[in-house]
């Protein structure tokens, strides 16, 4: 079945440093979605990427979708303590289900 791999599993940064998490799917995706889950919370939708090579920005967050629509990345510039949480990518192939990666847990030291 479809697999979505995400690296790194953990990332510890000093406040102000940049952060990147990478996502790779075993199959071509119709779209990829990114979610953030705070400790003890539930996943919160951040963005959806649909087009090959698409790049979207949300303030300090930059999301990219690969040309082959099998990989994606999330880059945070100048991290803040409010960025703490686990970031998940989730691939959609059928329109009825998301396959989540294992997530990257980000901690930010002030």
């Amino acid at each position, binding site marked *: 079945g479809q697999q979505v791999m995400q690296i790194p599993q953990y990332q510890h940064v000093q406040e102000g440093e940049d952060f990147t998490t990478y996502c790779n799917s075993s199959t071509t995706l119709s779209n990829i979605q990114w979610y953030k889950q705070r400790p003890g919370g539930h996943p919160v939708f951040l*963005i959806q990427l649909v087009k090959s090579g698409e790049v979207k920005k949300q303030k300090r967050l930059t999301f990219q979708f690969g040309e082959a629509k099998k990989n994606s990345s999330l880059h945070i510039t100048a991290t803040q303590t409010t960025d703490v949480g686990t970031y*998940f990518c989730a691939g959609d192939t059928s329109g009825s289900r998301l396959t989540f990666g294992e997530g990257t847990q980000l901690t930010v030291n002030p």
Partner: protein
Amino acid sequence: DAGVTQSPTHLIKTRGQHVTLRCSPISGHKSVSWYQQVLGQGPQFIFQYYEKEERGRGNFPDRFSARQFPNYSSELNVNALLLGDSALYLCASSLVYGYTFGSGTRLTVV
């Protein structure tokens, strides 16, 4: 507007018992999905319902079943509970794209 609401928030059950989890989607959202999230892992797809019809089923045993009611609320039922069913069960609703998750039901099987 209320978000996705789930009940109960926490539940402790004994092995072999049955459990019913409930979900009310955001008003106007006709699609409801269920995910299981084991601690430290990404959510895993269980079911999706749209307009009361099952649109997708994940790789879960037949002990897991669900249904969607005319008001678009949904129930997830799990029979013959196993210790391994202990997890956070998340319900999500969607209108066009991107899923809004509820806060989840934390199920502990002892």
